[in-house]
Each structure stands twice: as C-alpha cells, then as structure tokens.
C-alpha cells in the first residue's frame, strides 16, 4: 500500500473556487461580536474556578473544638479504600483515647471516590475542594497528618 492511498486530501474542498472568502468573513464577524463581551477565561492562579458543591478534592482530617484530631483510627477508611491508598497506625493512650499515630494517604494512588468520607463513623475525614496540588517528588504525595490537617495550604497561588 502506498502512502497516497490512505492520506486524506484535506485541501481538496478548500481550494474550490469562491469558497474561501465567505467563511473567513463569518469567522471575523464572530470574533468581532465577542471582542466587546466579558471574557470567559479565568486568570488562574490569581483567579480560581469555583467548583461544584460535591467536588472531591484533597482530603482533610478534621479537628474538634480543642484542636485534636477527630479520627479514632478505626481503620474503616483504609478498609474500604478501593486502591488501598490509606495507611493508619492506630495508637491508644493510657486512658483509652484512641488516635492515629500515623495516617498516610497516597494522593497519587487515590482515585478520589470519597468512600473514606462515606465510611468514617465520626466525620473525621473529608474531601475538600482543593484540586491543584503539584510537586516535584512522588514522595511528597504521601500526605501525613500535618499535611492532611490543612490541605488548603496547597492551593496554588502563583509566584
């Protein structure tokens, strides 16, 4: 089979006589019409798009009134997580208070399905609207408790 046989000839119709001016004018008219209306583009990162109410972005570990984690390290989120992105080391204090000694979410593995939020019996984990975490190292996508407590800090604000 030669190259010619399957190459699509795109220029065939355009070169037809008398068909080039009218479309050009049409296009220019459209441009002119929009030239004076408000632009729909957003100046990210100085401007941010408002996402939907049920958007599922980076996770947040909620704290209670005293600033301690609500999480009781029951492990239900880790259990239900389809890509197994959550790793918890539960710890219990002498009095019986239970909390996560270590809590990691692998944000690269995560598929942002929100099952963890669904499974949590104490409302400790929540998916925020933060969607634009970037970094240079894979290791940095392993979110630990400090990062998970405040995902809003990762909202990209430009330089």
């Amino acid at each position, binding site marked *: 089979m030669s190259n010619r046989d399957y190459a699509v000839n795109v220029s065939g119709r355009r070169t037809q006589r008398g068909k080039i001016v009218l479309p050009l004018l049409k296009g220019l008219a459209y441009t002119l019409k929009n030239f004076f209306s408000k632009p729909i583009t957003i100046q990210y990162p100085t401007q941010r798009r408002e996402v939907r109410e049920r958007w599922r972005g980076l996770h947040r570990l909620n704290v209670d009134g005293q600033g301690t984690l609500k999480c009781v390290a029951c*492990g239900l989120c880790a259990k239900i997580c389809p890509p197994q992105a959550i790793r918890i080391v539960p710890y219990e204090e002498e009095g019986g208070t239970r909390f996560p000694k270590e809590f990691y979410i692998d944000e690269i593995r995560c598929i942002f399905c929100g099952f963890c939020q669904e499974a949590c019996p104490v409302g400790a984990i929540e998916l925020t609207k933060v969607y634009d975490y970037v970094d240079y190292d894979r290791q940095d996508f392993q979110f630990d408790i400090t990062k998970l407590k405040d995902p809003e800090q990762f909202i990209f604000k430009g330089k």
Partner: protein
Amino acid sequence: MSMVTLTIDGKEVTVPKGTTILEAAGTAGIRIPTLCFHERLSPIGSCRMCVVDVEGCSQPMAACDTPVAEGARVATDSERLFRIRQDSLKLILVNHPLDCPICDKGGECLLQDLVYEFGIDKVEYQARKPQPDTTYATPLIRYWPERCIYCLRCATACREIKGIGVIDIETTDNPGHMLTVNPEICVSCGECLKVCPTGALTENLSRYKGRPWLVNRVPTTCTYCGCGCQLELNVLGGRLIGITTTDEVGVNRGSLCMKGRFGYEFVGSPERLTRPLVRKNGKLEETGWDAALGVVAERFSMIKNESGPDAIAGLSSARVTNEENYLFQKFMRAVIGTNNVDHCARLCLSSTAAGLDATFGSGAMTNAIEDVLSAEAILVTGSNTTENHPIFANYIIEAVLKHGAKLIVVDPRRIDLVDYAHIWLQQKPGTDVAWINGFMHIILKENLHARQYIEQRTTGFEELEKCIEKYTPEYVSDITGIPVDDLYEAARTYGKASPGSILYALGITQHTSGTNNVKSLGNLAMLCGNVGVKGGGVNPLRGQNNVQGACDLGALPNVFTGYQQVADIAAREKFSQAWGVENLSAEPGLTVPEMFSGAETGRVKAVYIMGENPMISDPDINHIKHCIEKLDFLVVQDIFLTETAQVADVVLPGAVFAEKEGTFTNSERKVQRVRKALEPPGDAREDRWIITALAEKMGSYMEYMHAEAVMDEIRTVTPSYAGISYERIEGGGIAWPCPSVDHPGTPILHAKEFTRGKGVFFAIDFQPSAETPDDEYPFILSTGRVKQHYHTGTMTRKGRGLTQLYPELLAEVNPADAARLGVQDGDYVTISSRRGSIKVKVWLTDRPGEGVVFVPFHFHEAAVNLLTNTALDPVAKIPELKVCAVKMEKAS
C-alpha cells in the same frame, strides 16, 4: 455407645447419646448462631442466641446445653426464632455501647457479626449505665465494664482451662451484674482475653492497635518454654504489636501463658544490638560486618594454627532454630575441626539424655503432651509445671478435673499444682533416689508390678530387687522426711494406675545424682509397665523452646545429628562425605563446665557463644568470670548486650525468632515451623547468615538459599528427621523419629520394643548431695524460675509488661525460718555460700519447706548463681544447681 437419631430441619442425624442439639446440628452442617458458647468450655447458656424449637415443647430450648433425644424433631430457623434471637441481642445491646470504631475487637467481634446478621441498626431500649470499679485482675489486660455483656465465657475459661477461678460475676442492684476479680491468684495467662467475644477485655500492653485487616498475622512457634505453642505474630507497619492464637491449633489449643501472650516486647526493644561490635583499646566499638567477621576469622585461624582446633570451643543455643544449631555444629566440626560444641542442655537436662538413653535407648520425652489426658495417675516431681510449662499444666489440670486422674506431686516446695494434687510428698531436696526406691519397694511388696512386662521387655530386674530391699518406708522416711503413710498411699496410687505417667523437670536432673535420679524414674515406670503405652511414659519437660532440637541436631560434644556417635567410624565417614571434609575429629569434645575449666588451665583459648549467657546461667559466676578473663578470644552472637557479651572481644548481632525462618523441636519431639514476620533491626542479621558468612571468611563455602535447604541437608544425614520436610509440617508439627516422607511420625516411643532393645533396670543406691547443710551454712538453697520471667531475663525483663508484675528478685523463705532470723516480709537478707553472697528481698511464703530457701536466677543484680555449686554429676556433667548450703542474715 448408644446412638440417638433425631431430625434437625428435616435432616435425619444420628449422634451418640449425650450430644447436645448444637453439636448434632454441627455434624449435619446446620449452623445455629451462638454467642456465649465456646468449643473448649462446657455450655454456659447465658445468651439465648442458640434457641431452637423442639416439637412438643412450647418454649424454645437452648441448643448448646440441651442433649438430644430419640426421635426429636428440631427446627433451627423460623420467623419466631429469628425474632427471639433478635430481641435477645437487643437486650444485650442495652448495656453495650456501639463504640465499635474505637474498640479493639471491631472487625472480629462476635457480637458485631451477630448484630449485622440480625439486622439491628438502632438500640431501642435504655438502661442505667453501670459504673463498676474498673481495675482488673492483671494490669496486662484492660477491662471495659460498659462493653461487658456478662456472657460468663471469661469466668468459665478461667475455671475450666486454667483451673483457677479468678473471675466471678456478682448480681447487684445497680447495675444488674458486676464482674469481680481476685488479682492475687491471677496468673495473667490471658485466657479470658482470648475467649471474650466482645471488646470488654483488651490487651493493655501494646499501645499500637491494629484491626484484623490492617495487621499481618504470621503463624509461628513460641520462643519460650518447651511446650511449643502455636501462636500468631501480629505485625503492623514492621512492628510486632501483639500475639494472638487460633482456636484448636497446636498443642496449646489456643491457650497461652503470660510469657507467650505478653512477653513479646523484647522483639522491638530499643536495646537490641543493631551493629557488630569489636573491642578496640578495651572498648566495644561499632563496626561493619566485613570487619567484624574478618577479626573473628583471623583470630580463629590463628588460634587453630597455633594451638590446634581443640583450643576453640563453641556454645550453641537452645533458643535458635534447628537449622542454625545444625550449621553451628557443622561450623565447629567441619570448619574449625573440633567436637568442642555444647549448649545449655548441659545445665538442665543432660542427665535426662544420659539416664533415659541408658535405660530406654532414647533420651527424649517418651509420650506426647496430650497423652497425659489418658493417664490414670500422674506423678509430677521436680517440676513447677503451672509456672514453667503452663500449657502442660493445663493438660494436667484437665486430666484431674475432667478425666478423674489422680495427681501425685513430689516436690520440696508447695507449688501451685499441689492445690490439684491428691497427695503431696514434701521430700528434702536431693533425696529423690531414696523416695523412688521407696515407691518401688512398696509396689514390689504389694505385688503391684507388671510381671509379664518386666519379663518380656526388660533386663536387670534381679539386681534392682536386691537393691531396693533395704528401702523400707521407714528408712526412706528417715532420709526424705516424707511421712510413711503418705509414701504408702502415693506408691499404691501410682502402682495401681494403668497407665501412670511420670513428669519431671530440673528438680530431678540438676543434681550430682541427676543421672541416677532419671534412671530411677525409668525403673519405676518400667516396673509398672508404663513405658510405651498411651498415657504413660517418663516425660522430661524441656525448659527451652528448642533444647530438644539443639540436642537432636548435634550441638553436643559426643554426637552428630540424631545422636550418631562421633566415635563411630561409619558415622564419621557419612558426615565427611556429606560435608566434603576429611578427618572429622573422633574424640568427644568438651562439655560446658569443662570448656570453662579448660579456659582456666589454658587448654581452651577461644570460645564462640551463640545466644547464651553463661555469666548469669552457669553455676558459680565468679569462677566463670575468672575463666572467661583467661580466654584469648571470646565471640558472642546475641540479640542484646548480655552480661557475657559485655566481656566479649567481638559481638555479632543476631535475630530473634520472629525475624527468621526455621523449625523448633518441642518437648514432645514435634518439629514445628518458625516463620519470619519482621526484618531484624538495623544491621542485625539472621544467625544462619552469620554462621555461613563466617565460614566463608575462613575459607569454607557454606551457602544455603533458604532455611529449607538446611533442613533438606539435615534430612539426608539424620535418620530420625528424614521424613520431616517443610512441606509436611506446614499445617502442624511431626514428632520424630520419622524415617521417611510417608511415615506419620512417632508420638509414643518404645511402643513395641525399647529403642535399645530391652529396657534396663539399674540398681541405684541413694547418695546425698555434694553439699549438705551444716552448722555454718544451715540452709539449702534451691534455684529455679518464676512464671513471670525467663532464664537470664534478657527477654522478659526488656519489656514493661512482665517486669511490672515481678519487678524485683524475691527469695522465697519459710515463715518459720524467717521468725528465727527475725526477718519480716519485704526485708532484705544477705544469702551467702562458700562461693559468694547476694542481697535479696524476702517473700514469706509456705512454698519452700523449713530450712529451704528458693531464689530465682533471672536477675543479674543479684545473680543467685554466684552462690551455686559447681559439683558435677559424674556421667552427664550437670552441675548441682538445686542444692547448695547457704547461710542467711538480715541485711540493713
């Protein structure tokens, strides 16, 4: 047995009479939901979950404790039963908070499962919240009163399995029930924790909590005593966070003791050795493996060239795996070229090996542990079984309480087992031959001996008969201090029993007459025809996890693996070929005490110690220390910087049982798997790797891909292990001798014929101990173990849990002696012998008899082995650790 036929859910079932409906349904494959029912416990009937309809009865019946009746028609499932069960659950939930997310049990909670099954999503009833006192019997377990559903499993298990009864349920006005405990008699075995169906009892030791699906559970064999319990290591994120067991698995059937269940903290201890240490300018400094092994290889080669291979001695270990013991003795024999290899069995049961080998032809426990359940009488002597072999003690207690066996305890101390005994004889320490001869005298006089058995299967009976003629009960009573009547009763009880089992431990063996004591017990058992039968036998209880395996695999100076004599040309030829070396030494090597005395005289220049701590465990520590100082070179391979490691020239960090693959051989000769669950900390390596790497440094190639490869080599050279492959023991252990892969193993030795042909009676006269009390040293000192600690304390004292239960060394002193000395409970006394002295706190107790003081040897601060005597048994070279003369004075 008469059978009963009944119909369950339309299925016809035939079961033996007396079976419960629940069991009958089980045989038919019909599941009835249960909550308080547990296979090992008698039916409790407190939860009403297992209710079934029996035709003709208006009320539903509890299936767990209703026996079957002929022709009964049982329905296990109906709308009505479902509602009754659901309501029962709802009532249970009134007092049970739904705090599953923070409950340890979440995910494996029986109540949780049932609540899901019965679709309960809210609690409809309300009740006043209980506020009982929350202190529990042991600090190792946490009690959550609000989660308790009062199913009575814990109380029943404590009573039936441990035979104690620490827990009870009291009925009160508010709240309706209350759990009461008696901490003083609790042995912290964790049986209650094991059977609790909810999270009312949780482990209080590890602060790290893992859910069943988060933790990795690795089945393995326990590393403490010789029972060889099967347990699961719970690993979370590379950290050992707890020990669990599975019902009906292994010899322990899901039970464990305090050490097995709670003594795991040493594994993750920050004090673990993580890098090899080499002594430079008098100080141990960290270095790399290459450098450390280089030093060892160089010094060993130098000493070997200068003074010959017999100037190097090796102490193998009863704590490491079979494979490592094999490699260690192979290293000593093939690479170094000496038979100077021994291990701590010398100090505990070498007299058993010598005694039983001479009598029966095999020095191991003759019967399986569970055999004791079929015994009519059990004679326990020189063994504090409940503390040192708690799982074996469970069997003894079960035999007594459930099977009606008669228990005879002969012990100088009033040990806990005496509570279950029919007769307790308190002999003076060191007079064992006398009372055993006394037993035989009475049995012969009363014609209770097995005449046919003696004629057909034994020799030497006439000499024995002559010898025991003079051991009349009165004469024996004079020597031993046992009342004549008691002696009669005990001898008759054992003589009449068929079969009768003899269990003993170090109270028999650690004497200058140790071998004779063991032979005497062999005499007694053969006299009554109790050897080679189910439920009989002479059973030495092995004190360490793999002391049997270490002996089997040739970590002894006179034998290769499987007790093949080094003096035997054929055996040497076989091992020469297998190992590819020539000129294996034919001369039996040095035993442990001889190694140290050899060091003193300059005969031994270097010692390689793997996983032992002779600076605490061996008698007369001052002497040992002096001997070690004389050595040119000492290598210690251990997991901690033990007292011995502190004086070593090179210290090599090894791995614990949880960090390696291999096998242990338990007391009943069962070879069981040990599996790797963790990585060794830092630079520490598996002992197998260390030995092979050292061999390579010394120019001998010893490479094994896996522990299994070592086992395969063991199987080719050891007839008794030939059929024991990893594949076969994957599901459960096999008892050697197992000569081929289709052999099922041999739980009972000497069944048809004694291993040596005919059993030999030895005529043995009583000889007193090497050191008896006199005016200057009026007390007898006996040493041993306590239930909370293990050996030199290197493992059990590294964790918080067991230490808080027994923080300080206590000398057990009889109140009568204490009154004479003017000593109160909790005072300090100085105990001195001719060799040294220690200061110890006193515990006044009637456990030791008058004139006897008992001190455990776990504590390096007050090492009781500073006092003990090095007098040896002439045959087995076992030191007399159980008897030495001491004086006691009140200390400031």
